[in-house]
């Protein structure tokens, strides 16, 4: 099976480049720079150094003994992306893209952020290299991720509130694209997930695949064999594709992406793009599964987790789903909240609410697996940013 996109960025019918004409040239320029960097040992050496000495990679693959005992069934290993500098996997992609931006001579960086993790990672790499940084963030997300807004500001970034649409990640991407198209000469758009027009989905996957490459090596070191099951949460899908991609050719490895089931099955109540009634559309430069109404307008979404609250999904996920290579499931807000507390209590690890979705799904399937089976769950980020809103949800009974 072929897992690479064609030279126009299509995985089967998914992906491509659906943008206004003005953005074609900057995307071509980006693609050229990306392809050149792929074959450049110096680029890889510089990135590897930063990943190791700045971000703290490799991140551990940790055997979650007490969690496994509580659940029964499979042995659970956690890929600790939460231990990266800035507290999430987002930095992997940001370090790669900031090196590209510098090579391209760009002096101003724009980015979108949902939960704020990508915004913080972008602000961080901009501080590291002394580049001007503007982060677009939906005002609803600003409300629920206040701490990350202040972190970005501390790091020297300007955070611009987005008040259009559902005031979440999707709307932040629209405004980041509008900024980029207006300032293409000096500005680099540092997109945070495996989304958007070609080459972003491919490029972000490449920079995030370090997760899966490490995990594959580490699990063999730990156990002498490959895992039976991988689990990761899927918003845009960068942490998931980063973990899954290096295992795609390992036939015995099952993979499950976990979407946000939110608070119900009606349109607008969740962010499960692959749920019943799923449909394909074009949003923000790429063709993929999209939550939309009968007129092709993009539906509102809901998730307790800002980072999963997005109406579309990376095109490579759509392809791998339809090809039957990756399965997708969803867990509800309340299941994620329970998992958030369970991992904190059993292992002393407070996961991001996004990652808690992966934990919640793992908790569902682990008891059905045998004790000699191995599951890797990606803890894509740490939960410090969510502590306050979880406290309110637990004490106040939801918002």
């Amino acid at each position, binding site marked *: 099976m072929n897992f690479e996109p064609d030279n126009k960025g299509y995985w089967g019918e998914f992906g491509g480049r*659906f943008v206004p004409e003005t953005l074609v*040239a900057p995307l071509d320029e980006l693609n050229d720079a990306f392809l050149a960097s792929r074959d450049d040992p110096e680029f890889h050496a510089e990135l590897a150094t930063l990943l190791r000495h700045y971000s703290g990679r490799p991140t551990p693959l940790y055997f979650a003994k007490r969690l496994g005992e509580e659940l029964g069934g499979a042995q659970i290993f956690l890929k600790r992306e939460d231990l990266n500098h800035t507290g999430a996997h987002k930095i992997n992609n940001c370090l790669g893209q900031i090196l590209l931006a510098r090579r391209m001579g760009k002096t101003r960086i724009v980015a979108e952020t949902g939960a704020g993790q990508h915004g913080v990672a972008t602000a961080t790499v901009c501080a590291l290299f002394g580049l001007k940084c503007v982060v677009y963030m939906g005002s609803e997300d600003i409300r629920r991720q206040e701490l990350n807004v202040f972190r970005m500001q501390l790091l020297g970034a300007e955070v611009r509130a987005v008040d*259009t649409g559902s005031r979440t990640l999707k709307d932040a991407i629209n405004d980041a*694209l509008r900024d980029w198209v207006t300032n293409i000469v000096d500005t680099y758009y540092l997109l945070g997930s495996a989304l958007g027009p070609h080459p972003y989905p491919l490029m972000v996957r490449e920079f995030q695949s370090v997760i899966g490459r490490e995990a594959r090596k580490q699990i063999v070191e730990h156990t002498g064999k490959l895992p039976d099951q991988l689990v990761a949460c899927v918003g845009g899908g960068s942490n998931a594709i980063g973990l899954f991609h290096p295992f795609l050719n390992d036939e015995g490895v099952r993979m499950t992406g976990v979407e946000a089931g939110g608070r119900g099955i009606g349109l607008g109540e969740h962010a499960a793009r692959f749920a019943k009634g799923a449909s394909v559309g074009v949003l923000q430069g790429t063709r993929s599964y999209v939550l939309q109404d009968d*007129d*092709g*307008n993009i539906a509102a979404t809901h998730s307790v987790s800002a980072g999963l609250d997005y109406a579309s999904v990376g095109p490579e996920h759509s392809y791998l789903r339809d090809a039957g290579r990756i399965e997708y499931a969803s867990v509800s807000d309340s299941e994620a909240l329970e998992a958030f507390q369970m991992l904190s209590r059993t292992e002393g690890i407070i996961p991001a609410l996004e990652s808690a979705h992966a934990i919640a799904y793992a908790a569902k399937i682990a008891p059905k697996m045998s004790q000699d089976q191995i599951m890797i769950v990606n803890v894509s980020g740490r939960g410090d940013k969510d502590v306050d809103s979880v406290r309110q949800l637990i004490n106040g009974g939801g918002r």
Partner: protein
Amino acid sequence: MSDRITQSLKNGRGFIPFVTAGDPDDASSLEICKLLAERGASVIELGVPFSDPMADGVVIQRSSQRALENGVNLTRVLSLASKLRASSDVPVVLFSYLNPILRFGIEELCAEAKRSGIDGVLIVDAVDSEARELSEMFAKHDISLISLVAPTTSDERLEKICRNARGFIYAVSTAGVTGARGSISNDAERLVARVRKFTDLPIAVGFGISTHEQIEAVWKFADAAVVGSAIVAEIEASLETQDAVSRVEALIDHLLPLQMATHTHKVEGSQL
């Protein structure tokens, strides 16, 4: 050149107004289109509202949002177009993002658009082979897919785009989103000169044009000027006073003093 759009623009000094269909409401929208046709529109661009208009500035974003809140969809846009067509021969171009069209169905749209008297379709976020495929499908129904070019478009791309272009070429005046700007950059004139090397089709300049002086300036080097946000802003300003039609008329008085445009389109039974 049998294309009605091309015919309407071939003598230069063309005026292409844009309005979002159904903003502030369907009836006013129709009256505004009739007025524009009567007052010298060479072609009318009818905007299909979309939830995520990433190429648009705030004025058209808000307009799109108002139309969506009124329940406007492609079916209603086409209905508006056919009512306009019943009383005017002005060429009409749908201005849309791709997703509402995909959801409606391309073949269905071709058939319905033809019935509604639509002459062309401009899809903001379709480029390259995707645009070429759509253009071929529309062409079978005598509908022209209008191509956009930008200052960032290379000569190599311009040549390819012009080879497949129909109707007219829409030259984006400057890198950015839609919306009024103080001046039209020199980029626009340079771009139009580059485009001329590859096509005999009329060239319209848009993005940022909001005054009579800017229209005159554009007419010196291009065949038509597109005015969108300035008109939509008048509609927005009329929401309280509910005088959208007269406000737009006052703007047109300013933009196009009478008899300035090359020709007007007759509107039958107009109460204007």
